[in-house]
């Protein structure tokens, strides 16, 4: 394409059109005032690679008695995979491998965390002073989301050095603090710096904290953080109801795709459901098996394409069922429904279902999965609530995906694709929630 080409960008730009008229955003906001309120993201948050973290978090919460006024303390060194660490009632830290944390929560809520190495992302609740002490400085916060990364730390933290003049001699090349919400103060004996959302601060040995270039907080990192914030909020919510569910999180390796009878009975007692979530999308072709998984399991390109095509047929059928459910529940027309993503459809169905219906749905599903009551027949199912039918559809999708794969590569290899290398299920994406008490939400 040359500049003489009538379709060259310079020429195309000559066809200018009006932008948004004045006051348009206000008119949109006014229209929204008449619309139903937004729901928070899915209560059944897909915990990608997070099942283990959730188990650990809830176990720790139960042990520490989240929400009590008791003094609490703990220590944790993260070995080989990301873990969620509950800091009693003051917050959550998502710690990467190699992170060492020690924490003390006083009876009045004052929290002091020592992070001597590694990288952790914190979500802090209001409720008193909260400090993260690193080898090179102290992070003081009041209620925020931020991450702390200690690089090249070789020695454990020396509290005297943090407070004293020899602070800069500690063997750590830098501490990076990135703030996502709220604000923090990063301080050391050489100075202090207020850090705002979107900013990253760095402190090096013997130097005052200074603001780092925005490039550190890359859009990718911010996007990752945003997802973590939401996940952590869900985990905190789960923690508050942990008395209802702590004992349900067992260690059945097939919990999400082939739960044992014992697991199913436990879940039935707690109106609990857990299942894996293969890709489910209204936009384009779902990729059930990506190239990396195909290579790992020894699936050829042709087989992979055939599996994904077979799965598309399956998921499209379920998508149509989901859309019909949505239209039935909301009265929306087909064109409007076709515009909505799967997540939007699911969220709306959930939003328009009562808590009682949702609990009843979980109870019925958990009991039938455990063999405590028969599976509903087709005729019975159409009389069940929309939320129950949606959940049954979601739960069934994992096995339907496996069947689609099996039609191409056989049952054994299909199962290997689903649970390869210890995965919790398709693409390691799962939902795991429940409770028979309507006050318990996750």
């Amino acid at each position, binding site marked *: 394409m040359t500049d003489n080409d009538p379709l060259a960008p310079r020429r195309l730009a000559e066809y200018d059109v009006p932008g948004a008229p004045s006051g348009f955003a206000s008119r949109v906001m006014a229209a*929204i005032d008449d619309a139903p309120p937004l729901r928070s993201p899915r209560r059944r948050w897909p915990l990608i690679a997070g099942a283990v973290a959730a188990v650990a978090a809830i176990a720790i919460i139960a042990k520490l008695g989240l929400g009590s006024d008791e003094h609490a303390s703990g220590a944790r060194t993260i070995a080989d995979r990301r873990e969620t660490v509950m800091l009693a009632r003051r917050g959550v830290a998502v710690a990467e491998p190699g992170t060492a944390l020690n924490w003390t929560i006083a009876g009045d809520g004052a929290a002091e965390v020592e992070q001597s190495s590694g990288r952790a992302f914190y979500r802090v609740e209001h409720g008193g002073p909260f400090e993260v002490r690193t080898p090179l400085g102290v992070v003081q916060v009041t209620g925020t989301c931020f991450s702390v990364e200690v690089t090249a730390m070789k020695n454990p933290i020396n509290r005297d050095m943090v407070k004293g003049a020899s602070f800069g001699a500690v063997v750590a090349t830098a501490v990076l603090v990135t703030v996502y919400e709220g604000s923090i103060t990063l301080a050391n004996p050489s100075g202090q710096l207020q850090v705002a959302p979107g900013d990253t601060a760095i402190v090096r040995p013997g130097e005052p904290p200074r603001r780092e270039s925005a490039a550190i907080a890359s859009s990718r990192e911010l996007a990752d953080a945003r997802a973590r914030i*939401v996940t952590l909020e869900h985990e905190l919510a789960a923690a508050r109801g942990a008395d209802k569910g702590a004992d349900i999180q067992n260690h059945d390796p097939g919990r999400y795709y082939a739960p044992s009878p014992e697991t199913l009975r436990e879940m039935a007692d707690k109106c609990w459901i857990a299942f894996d979530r293969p890709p489910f999308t209204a*936009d384009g072709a779902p990729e059930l098996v990506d190239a990396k998984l195909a290579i790992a399991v020894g699936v050829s390109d042709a087989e992979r394409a055939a599996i994904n095509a077979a799965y598309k047929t399956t998921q499209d059928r379920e998508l149509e069922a989901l859309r019909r459910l949505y239209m039935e529940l909301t009265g929306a027309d087909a064109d409007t429904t076709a*515009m*909505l993503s799967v997540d939007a459809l699911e969220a709306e169905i959930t939003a328009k279902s009562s808590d009682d219906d949702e609990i009843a749905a979980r109870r019925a599903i958990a009991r039938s999965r455990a063999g405590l009551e028969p599976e509903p027949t087709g005729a019975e199912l159409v009389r069940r609530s929309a939320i129950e039918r949606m959940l049954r559809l979601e739960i069934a999708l994992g096995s339907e995906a496996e069947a689609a794969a099996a039609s191409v590569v056989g049952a054994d290899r299909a199962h290997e694709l689903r649970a390869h290398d210890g995965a919790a299920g398709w693409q390691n994406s799962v939902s795991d929630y429940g409770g028979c008490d309507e006050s318990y939400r996750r």
Partner: protein
Amino acid sequence: MTASTPLRRARELDDLTLARAQHGDAAAFRALVETYQDAVFALVWRLRGRHAAAAEIEDIAQTTFLGVYRALPRFRAAGPAKLSTWILTIATRAVLKSRRGDREIVELEDLPQLPTQVARIAQRSFADALALALDALPAAYRAVFVLHAYHELDHAEIATALEIEPGTVKSRLSRAREHLRAHLKEFAP
């Protein structure tokens, strides 16, 4: 007011504001609207054509943002789609839905000869001729071209937006270009 960014992607909303908007923060959602409104208007104008009434364009744009509002909690910031692409997808579908009669795919060979106004307008301005040539394209071809040429969506993104195969995007884009070049040849020195 004119669209200030006709040939490049809208800037993206920062992730924190997006997260707040997803949690129902009205100020954050307003910021989202203000960030993407010009891109949406530019898209809608070019898809509907300059003959459309301003009120109709605003209705479609408003429908778009109401759709965004409803679906926003489910948008995955860490997913493959940029927020701008996702919003433009909703806008494109809103336009196509608004002119249901145009949704059937008309093959270019089946089109009547372009109106002779193109030649006449050629004596006035390239922009007018381009607008008319675009208007004469079937909606499905025009959407592919506008999303690619004016909003820089790639083939895969357009395929997702229009729920068609990437190969179809490529062929429609190619044929739309052929069509436009043929009818704008007076402007190629």
